């Protein structure tokens, strides 16, 4: 995936693909499907990631198998807030973070 300019870092649309997963269409034409549970596991908030060390506190066995986004709100110009089915909603997913995750998911670095 090529994201050369900051403008291309913006999504055009964020949609449901099924009951669980999220599809983001990026400005540069790329389409990435984000599996629901993976998004929850990647939560960048201070509860899920140690603020000082950056070590992930959230473990696989702490998250239900069927966890999924129940709602998504925009945050300013730069991110989204995901309200998960387990009540967790403190993570702010910036476009950068979602692009990085998108690269991992599509095997493109």
């Amino acid at each position, binding site marked *: 995936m090529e994201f050369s300019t900051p*403008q291309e870092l913006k999504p055009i649309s964020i949609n449901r693909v099924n009951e669980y997963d999220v599809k983001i269409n990026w400005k540069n034409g790329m389409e990435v499907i984000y599996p629901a549970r993976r998004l929850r596991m990647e939560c960048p908030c201070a509860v899920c990631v140690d603020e000082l060390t950056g070590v992930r506190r959230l473990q696989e066995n702490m998250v239900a198998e069927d966890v999924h986004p129940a709602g998504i709100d925009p945050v300013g110009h730069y991110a989204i807030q995901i309200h998960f089915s387990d009540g967790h909603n403190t993570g702010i997913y*910036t476009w950068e973070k979602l692009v990085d995750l998108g690269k991992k998911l599509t095997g493109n670095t």
Partner: protein
Amino acid sequence: MNDSQINQEQILDALRVVIDPDLHRDIVALGFVKELKVRNNRVSFHLELTTPACPVKDELREQAEDAVRKLPGIEAVEVTLSAQVRSHGPTGQNIIPGIKNVIPVGSGKGGVGKSTVSANLAVALAETGASVGLMDADVYGPSIPTILGINDQPRSGGKGMLPVEAHGVKVISAGFFVKPDQAVVWRGPMLAKMIEQFLGQVEWGELDYLVVDLPPGTGDVQLTLCQRIPLTGALIVTTPQPVAVNIAEKAIIMFNQLKCPLLGVVENMSYWESRTTGEREFIFGSGGADRIAEKWEVPVLGKIPLATTVRESSDSGTPIVLDEAGSPAAVAFVDTAKSLAAQISIRNIRAESEGLVSINF
């Protein structure tokens, strides 16, 4: 002659030569030409600009008039001006739907005159006919009530609090809720709550511009504001000397991180001009704003001279743009307000063509 009656298409074609110097597009493509009427070779139309504070509105009117007059057989041209401020498209979660543009005014360092600049720009924008609000979010040292001479308290309206109107500007200030002999000693969540109330529970009504006077620095208030609402863009106030410029850059870095665009830099206390000789003395050095502008690729929107009258008018409650209209500092503020309005139009026109993120979830 009567056979070759001019039609609307010909007139629109002729008007395409008139280019808005800020938006770099012709006034027909920008949709400025409204209510075009042609009767017996007499032409009248409306030019609907993107802001009543447009710095080039007279030039645009003249050029449009000339362009039409050049067509064969035209007997009279009548151009009227109006303005419809374009909205900064909200990305959905807009807790203040009537507000078209939110412009935070920040600085890294305190004491650079951020509140004086905010107040004068808000009043100057209102003077052009725009509807303007001013939110004084400087909880630690709210000075807007003093600068605008407000002694009233906000009253409660049907749905929330009504802002106090002063010099044509709707004002809400942290100072309304803290007694002069008290200090705000709050932790972050309290600050966030106040900002959310200022945004969500104040009956601002319809506003073209909401100017937000931020506290100095890069803390909770700035963070909450940037996270809660899509901002049009930030204005950075600095003074010329390196110590202020270096800290102003920290504010810029914060806005960049939060993806809040920068509209420009204002250099306050830029120079002192002798009334007798007109000689300029650069008390705090020079070139501070220019250095920021070059490094961060943002325009310098204005340089405000140091003047005793700026300080006096701020203390007396009538901002200098009204108190001494025509004085060098007042003119500098008015010009800065126009440049700011132009930058906002540029950004919104660009955003319109870029489109918004649509979230369906």
